[in-house]
């Protein structure tokens, strides 16, 4: 089992959604939802601690892969998270992505935490800091209106430059 204490939170995004914890849990763990809001990637996840976790792109290649660290529906999901779609990122240590789901009045607070087990440069965090707001905004729209956002994004240049610098 991995030692979660080694992972330090680097990016936290909080969003309130007019929905239920159960629906948000389904949206986080079912491919018919993830393909709508996660840049087209389909989630495959074994519903248990230690289970395999993959986000698969529409062309069948792997976007992200990891393992389930915590599976506590509908309150908390944590997975190790290795970005595979960018070749330059494949050798980096996996991070830990966790979702906390809490009732907050009429709506539900969803907190995404991206934690890292090494001293990751800010430039490398820029991808997640651009991507998570888009992904989670789209998830909120999908659950509240039935329609996700159509967001096209490229990796931030500062992240690509930082990756190139790591290789040298």
């Amino acid at each position, binding site marked *: 089992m991995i030692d979660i204490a080694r992972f330090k939170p680097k990016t936290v995004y909080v969003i309130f959604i007019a929905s239920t914890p159960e629906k948000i849990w389904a949206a986080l763990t079912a491919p018919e939802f993830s393909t709508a809001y996660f840049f087209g990637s389909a989630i495959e996840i074994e519903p248990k601690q230690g289970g395999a976790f993959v986000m698969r792109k529409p062309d069948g290649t792997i976007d992200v892969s990891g393992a389930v660290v915590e599976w506590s529906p509908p309150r908390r999901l944590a997975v190790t998270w290795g970005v595979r779609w960018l070749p330059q990122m494949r050798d980096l240590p996996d991070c830990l992505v966790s979702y906390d789901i809490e009732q907050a009045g*009429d709506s539900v607070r969803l907190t995404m935490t991206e934690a890292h087990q090494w001293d990751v440069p800010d430039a490398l965090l820029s991808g997640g800091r651009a991507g998570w707001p888009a992904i989670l905004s789209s998830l909120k729209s999908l659950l*509240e209106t039935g329609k996700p956002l*159509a967001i096209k994004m490229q990796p931030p240049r500062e992240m690509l430059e930082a990756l190139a610098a790591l290789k040298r």
Partner: protein
Amino acid sequence: MTAFTAAGAKAHDDPIIESDPPHRLVYGWKPMYKDLPDERMSRVTFELEPFKDQTRLTVTHDDFDEGSVMFRMISKGWPAVLSSLKSFLETGKGLAPSWDDEAQKRAATGA
């Protein structure tokens, strides 16, 4: 920039620092709610960028002193306010203020 609570009390009377509609708005931040710590004015920046038929709104709230209590408060408040703004624009209905117990109590009593 002035703002009032639901009960009609003045909550903000802050200077506009920069206004460039509909791209950028910057104003000072020193709310007038009761029982707030006496801290100097901080600064809020809103940036709007079109993204096809959508808009990316980036809010940056900075210029706090080290250890600011207001910083901790706004860190809880903005996600709730901005989530509610998004719901309101997309569905016509905002979310109830419920980002923490204190805010819930204030909302309930109108204080």
